[in-house]
């Protein structure tokens, strides 16, 4: 009895270890393509990021920069407190709380022609909420009033 118990415990422990190892392998293989670094427009200008690499661009929408022709394709400019700017294009329905002067985080890729193609826009959800990364880089709150 005790021999078989030791053996069965061994089976479970090694199975657990195998699963953990499998998890590590999956993570190691899945991670490199999936990492999204956070960048501000100033950082983006200073760096040489290849087009097509996914990243998160955070900044404030420059008042007056938002344009759309058909209501589906949108372009606007993001800036940060260091003065860098980046043109962003986005297709689809805009989030409800999208406003000029507001801080947002756009996830997407550089298009190779100087623009940024956003797949997803994260805006504030509550008038007082600012994503943590934006708190350090863009004074979203103070300039909010100027955008309205």
């Amino acid at each position, binding site marked *: 009895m005790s021999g078989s118990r030791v053996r069965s415990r061994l089976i479970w422990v090694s199975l657990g270890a195998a699963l953990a190892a499998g998890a590590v392998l999956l993570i190691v293989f899945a991670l490199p393509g999936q990492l*999204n670094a956070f960048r501000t427009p100033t950082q983006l200008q200073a760096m040489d990021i290849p087009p097509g690499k996914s990243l998160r661009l955070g900044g404030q929408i420059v008042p007056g920069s938002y344009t759309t022709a058909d209501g589906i394709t949108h372009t606007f400019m993001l800036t940060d407190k260091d003065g860098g700017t980046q043109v962003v294009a986005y297709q689809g329905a805009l989030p409800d709380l999208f406003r000029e002067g507001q801080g947002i985080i756009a996830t997407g890729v550089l298009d190779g022609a100087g623009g940024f193609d956003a797949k997803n826009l994260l805006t504030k*959800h509550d008038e007082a909420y600012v994503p943590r990364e934006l708190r350090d880089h863009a004074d979203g709150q103070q300039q909010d009033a100027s955008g*309205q």
Partner: protein
Amino acid sequence: MISEWAHLALVLALPMAFMQAVVALVPAAPMGWSDSFRQSVVRAVSLITAGLISLAFLGLVLAFVTGDFSVKTTFEHSHTAKPLLYKISGTWGNHEGSILLWVLILAVFGGLLALRGTDGQTRDLRVRALGIQALITLAFLAFTLFTSNPFERVLPAPLEGRGLNPLLQDIGLALHPPLLYFGYVGFSITFAFTVAALLRGEADWIWARMVRPWAMLAWTGLTAGIALGSWWAYYELGWGGFWAWDPVENLSFLPWLTGTAFIHSLMVVEKSGALRVWTLFLGVVTFVLAILGTFVVRSGLLTSVHAFAVDPARGVFILLILGLSVIIAFGLFAWRAPQFKPGRGFAPVSREGALVLNNLFLSTGAGVVLLGTFFPLITEAFGQPLTVGKPYFDATFLPFMVPLLLLMAIGPFVPWQRLRGSTGDRVRGLLTLLVVAVALTMIVIVMLLWQSKPRLSLTVGLAMVLAGWLLGGGLLTFVQRARAVRSPFKVSLAGCAVSLAHAGLGIAVFGLIAGSAMVQERTVNLKPGDSVEVGHLTFRLDGVRETQADPSIGRNYISAFADVALLTGKGATKAILSPERRFYPVRQDSTTEADIRVTWLGDIFLAFNTQAPDGGFILTLSWRPLIPWLYFGCILMVLGGLLGAIAAWRRVERA
């Protein structure tokens, strides 16, 4: 005035909880008290604590309902021109109120545990558990009073409040947080029992039997809370749909995964005494993850679509509570765990073995989700934050869920301890299950093909067979249990519970697959009279109309409706859908209210986004097959959980 009394009640609860903890945890002998007297004192005090906190909560609700804007929470988050339901739910639609709700549920759970007194060996366990529960209540009460006091005053009292965030004026807010907290906090009781077991150095089948109803109840609440949250995020635009692997979503999912493992490993402890140490570990981890969820959501540590404004001081305080619980519980664990005797052995292929596998897959899954969720913080420590998104979670989490779901359909048929019966029977059983799975999948696919133009692929088909396998497993479990007692009406509650919960997950998985891989959607610019096709559906924009705000019926917003006709193949109007845009003058905010037409096979989901410069209207039109199945499946799981809780409760009563 009411608010002052409520505040007083909340303050008084603090010494009561302290007293409860001291009396319950300090040995009775030095005070010269008998065990039964001590139990009576602890029970009385915990009922008083629960009563005081309930009064405080009721006071805050009244402040919201009557519009007492001298209370800062009310002033900042309420408004007279708001429907009654949202005045009430607004009570917990803000940080202070939601933490008070958390404390309320904590105290109510403590009170429930105190309701029934016992003697013999369960008495010591219950009293100690009440002591631990009192410590948790004490910590969160202190948190409420010192960092998030909902009864802070504004003087002089303003005449009008600032109004509730329009996104939160929703039935989702009325239901989702209370249920989620019910789940989170429910695991405080199982944590209390776990720590009590560690203190006593004993966790036998009686312990497992006593913990199970609470664990089942907490699991049911958490399941319902997550499902409702997912439903809310599904119909609220901009929240990423029913599941976006957002940090806040993941954080509620983590205790669900370990809690699910916990309710299953408890069965093994009750049956054979094996897996004791592991089960105690899960009991600790689940509640720690629940506090972690609260901490991260309340501290803004991770960037999320569901995050709200934060105050760093609060984060530090919850981190302190979290740290203390981790240190105390795991310290106790490290000290006591080696002393537990192993239980009865079992063969690798047995019910116990299946449940161990369930636990292994669930905890590995929880591990990769935990890592992905906290990846930004881990990488930030080494330089800059890197986030991972849906592709990471799909690639690392799903590989553990596929075998789990495969095994889940078979597990309930495997006998305890070791295999019995012939190989032929087993092969026949597996073949039956496979046939049922394929048949169910075919029915679903044929229905979809008949009603719509679905986007099918081999992967989708295979994934659906997995869902059918799971649903078939749930159904066959019921058939097997019914055969054993020769009547479908005599199946035990526990048998119904497992069938319902497993079959429910199968149905939900159908919805998950279709909702992730088969959605047909278009965002278009339409002028009145324009038509557009989405999948098998044809729509025509008939026009746009506006309605004004009307505070007398609680409508504090201006609406624009887009009337969209759903056309039949011949061009006749089958139905009119009216997605809406709302403008809230008090807050200068707009929201998009989707119009969703629920059918047996899927949702027709229309959203009215905005008006384009060229005068056209931007509409998002989509066909989302089988989404109602996702929520129907969740309802079945919740029912299964409830039945399971009742069944477990009855076993305790009988013991």
